[in-house]
């Protein structure tokens, strides 16, 4: 793979050697081989760079922005077109690997539904306007707000980091506002709070490869949790050699659960009790319990925990024994634990296990402090969504900028966000696509795709030493005039503080300057600024070492309340995230729509996973449409009968049910987020995403559920997947 030096933007100015259409097959009629001469035009280069050779692909390093994990990528560019993305082997996050969402970055970039022109609401309708007009309107409106009430301007974004985050901060500072709302549906905000309180660090490093046993309470680290591609690469190490044991306890089988050696179907909302039950069993076997947690642990003897969680006492004791036997281990809490009204307590109970087993310091280690606070990621959560909805409802905002998130789609209807937005006089949406939020906007600014843009990013989870990953354009923008996000921010800032930012032509020079002004300790010696810049782009990242601290083990008091049964709404709704469509942002990518769900193998649809016993009770079978009703709304989805879900739960995957997100996403399935109750996690103020109770009723409608391998779930005694026992494996391949 060639990683050639990048010089400014010159390589982008190439014209296509062959037009893209020419790649199309000619496999159809006629198959005559004589191609008429003089019909097609050959576009010759005007003045190409030395390394540009038509017909030869060149790889450039960049950063994947399909989720917030910050994987490094290499993009193959040929004749001015980005063709394929692969992992950057230099990146400590993904080590040259890339998940399906990352692979699909090219389809986000080339998406046919991308916006090419700014849109302004005129007479209630969004109409295309020119870029000049767009900037003018923006200047006027924000200028007006700045004059009267700069504090009433807000940014509402997804997870942002690096210089993007810094510029947003500076923009708000310039206006005198503090309203930066950061929202992600798939987050680990509660877990971060627990980590912060217990360990003293929000996101310590998890040495999965060192663990001999991983016990995951709904933490889908292979699919959607924190940094899935990284954990998948670590998982491979974890599974090789002596081969660690993976135990997963969750109410709905996730991708991680589907790889577990022991899968425990825990009653929704009782994971904390299960953790305490295991802790109790451990305590009985002589493991010491921190004093503060002793009462809680003592209260949940395995027999009692079994009663509550639905996991037999024998099993609980077995897990405890396994934990004791395989040390060090790693116990993780995921969204199903955290997304409850008592999520913080439950997650603390899980963390308690780590403390009791002495994992802190062994498999959970400090990641140190990232040296540049202004570049640190602003990690998304749902508390800000609630706060923003409230602020909007209270008419506390005049101008709102939206970027990297689609709150109108992700916010539960019960938050009243869509109505609240009516109260914000001027809403600016920076987006690539027309989405549900853009449909509410007053001004829609198309931004460059991640493959056309410059940027720096800092991942929330830093697997090794701290790195700033660099994003560089792989090709010329598809739609001329469309600014990068950084460029747009700079432009906004210049409108406010022309003298401070006037020196920077664009975000590119801003970043170059930022690298040049890096403190000397982070620069490799003997490099000029230009060399450093080129080397950084070539590698795609900049390492900024930070001394690791030490982790604390402050376990506090744990109080868990009983999960009450609800007669009217007997089922727990599990809005399960999918590796693929994620929180719905990738629903417009045809590859990901067509990629079967890892577990159910359903494509192009939503479905409700029901345990066979629940399905029998409701009298439904696969493909029957059920109506799922909560106190706050109802959705209709097809049933997928599946044993990997607790009978008290009904799981509906996230991602579908879009109404205004392009041809590939619209009109498919349903969005379970819409019917969530506005319940709040008591300690952190996060939305209790998994705390909604629903009932399911059959509608009598039946439609085929389109899925792969539709008639078979077993191998019919063929030797397709052959298994061997772990003992045998360890005997022969264990190191």
């Amino acid at each position, binding site marked *: 793979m060639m990683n050639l030096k990048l010089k400014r933007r010159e390589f982008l100015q190439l*014209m296509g050697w062959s037009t893209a259409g020419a790649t199309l097959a000619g496999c159809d009629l006629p198959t005559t081989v004589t191609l008429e001469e*003089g019909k097609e035009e050959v576009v010759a280069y005007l*003045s190409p760079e030395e390394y540009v*050779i038509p*017909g*030869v692909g060149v790889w450039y390093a960049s950063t994947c922005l399909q989720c917030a994990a910050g994987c490094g990528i290499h993009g193959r560019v040929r004749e001015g077109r980005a063709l394929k993305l692969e992992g950057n082997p230099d990146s400590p996050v993904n080590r040259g690997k890339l998940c399906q969402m990352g692979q699909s970055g090219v389809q986000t970039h080339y998406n046919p539904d991308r916006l090419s022109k700014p849109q302004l609401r005129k007479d209630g309708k969004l109409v295309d306007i020119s870029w000049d007009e767009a900037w003018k309107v923006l200047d006027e409106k924000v200028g007006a707000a700045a004059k009267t009430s700069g504090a009433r301007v807000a940014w509402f974004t997804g997870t942002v980091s690096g210089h993007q985050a810094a510029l947003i901060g500076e923009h708000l500072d310039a206006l005198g506002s503090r309203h930066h709302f950061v929202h992600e549906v798939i987050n680990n905000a509660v877990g971060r709070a627990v980590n912060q309180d217990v360990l003293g660090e929000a996101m310590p490093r998890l040495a999965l490869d060192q663990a001999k046993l991983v016990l995951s309470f709904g933490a889908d680290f292979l699919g959607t949790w924190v940094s899935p591609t990284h954990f998948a690469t670590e998982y491979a190490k974890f599974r090789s050699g002596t081969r660690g044991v993976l135990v997963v306890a969750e109410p709905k089988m996730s991708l991680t659960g589907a790889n577990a050696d022991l899968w425990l179907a825990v009653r929704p909302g009782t994971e904390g009790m299960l953790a305490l039950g295991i802790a109790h069993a451990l305590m009985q076997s002589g493991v010491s319990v921190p004093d503060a947690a002793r009462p809680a642990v003592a209260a949940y003897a395995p027999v009692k925990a079994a009663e509550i969680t639905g996991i037999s006492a024998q099993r609980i004791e077995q897990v405890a024994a396994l934990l004791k036997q395989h040390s060090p281990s790693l116990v993780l809490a995921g969204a199903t634990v955290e997304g409850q009204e008592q999520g913080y307590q439950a997650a603390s109970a899980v963390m308690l296990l780590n403390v009791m087993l002495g994992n802190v310091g062994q498999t959970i280690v400090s990641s140190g402090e990232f040296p540049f606070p202004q570049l640190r990621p602003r990690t998304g959560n749902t508390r800000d969504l609630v706060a923003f909805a409230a602020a909007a409802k209270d008419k506390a905002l005049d101008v709102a900028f939206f970027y990297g998130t689609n709150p109108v789609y992700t916010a539960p209807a019960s938050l009243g966000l869509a109505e609240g937005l009516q109260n914000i006089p001027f809403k600016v949406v920076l987006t690539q696509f027309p989405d549900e939020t853009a449909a509410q906007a007053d001004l829609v600014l198309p931004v460059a795709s991640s493959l056309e843009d410059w940027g720096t990013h800092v991942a929330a989870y830093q697997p090794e030493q701290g790195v700033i990953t660099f994003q560089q354009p792989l090709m010329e923008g598809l739609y001329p005039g469309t600014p990068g996000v950084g460029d747009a921010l700079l432009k906004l800032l210049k409108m406010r503080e022309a003298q401070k930012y006037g020196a920077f032509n664009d975000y590119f020079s801003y970043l170059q300057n930022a690298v040049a002004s890096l403190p000397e300790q982070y620069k490799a010696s003997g490099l000029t600024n230009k060399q450093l810049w080129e080397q950084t782009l070539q590698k795609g990242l900049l390492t900024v070492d930070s001394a690791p601290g030490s982790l604390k083990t402050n376990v506090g008091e744990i109080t868990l309340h009983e999960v009450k049964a609800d007669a009217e709404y007997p089922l727990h709704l599990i809005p399960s995230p999918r590796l693929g469509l994620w929180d719905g942002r990738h629903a417009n990518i045809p590859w990901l729509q067509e990629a079967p769900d890892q577990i159910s193998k359903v494509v192009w649809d939503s479905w409700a996973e029901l345990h066979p016993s629940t399905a029998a009770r409701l009298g439904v079978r696969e493909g029957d449409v059920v109506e799922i009703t909560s106190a706050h709304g109802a959705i209709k989805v097809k049933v997928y009968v599946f044993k990997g879900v607790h009978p008290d739960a009904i799981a509906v995957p996230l991602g579908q049910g879009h109404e205004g997100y392009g041809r590939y996403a619209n009109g498919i399935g349903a969005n379970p987020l819409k019917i969530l109750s506005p319940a709040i996690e008591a300690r952190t103020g996060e939305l209790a995403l998994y705390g909604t109770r629903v009932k399911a009723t059959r509608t009598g409608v039946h439609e085929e559920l389109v899925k792969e391998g539709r008639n078979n779930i077993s191998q019919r005694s063929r030797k397709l997947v052959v298994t061997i026992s772990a003992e045998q494996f360890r005997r022969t391949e264990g190191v």
Partner: protein
Amino acid sequence: MRWIQLDRAKREPARQGCGALLVALALVWAMPASADTAAPASIKYPVAPEGAHAGKDVAQPIEFPHDIHTAVNKINCLYCHTYARRSKVAGIPPTSKCMGCHSVIATDKPRIKQLTEYWEKKQPVPWKKVHDVPDFVHFTHEKHLKKFIFDNDELVQNLSVDTVAPVCAACHGDLRTMTVAKKIKPMTMGWCVSCHEKNGGPGDCWACHK
């Protein structure tokens, strides 16, 4: 009369018929070998495949005189079509390459004025494609040149237009005699295959089909 007489010619037709069939059989036996896969030991130039194509005269934006550049000025083909030895496509030379010489040479000629106009407008010249293979064909210039030019020690030393042009001529015709390029070879699969057979090229479908 004739009918009855012929009726008497009892076995003759049978003999004749059998004879004809046996001759035909013998002909099949004696059919000559057409595929000779053994390549000659040292190749200077490709044994050109047979076949001609009545190409059209393609009107190019600038009537580029190949003959003046190659036959008169003795400029090597690979000087301008520089990608040919490094990539699968030979490439049209970038305008900057033309201007390298023509900012000083023959600047008053009408064609050069045209060229300079494009250069100053920073527009690439919209050349028309003359030689093309279908999109399902993988053809690399670099490997063909390696085999016929660069693997031949003698040629590397005195690489001149007169050693390179005959190699190019196998597929493109002798450009030393043309102004703008014209397709004079059929460039069909059978034509390619015949050359591969004569010169020991790969016979694997996937060598060329993608």
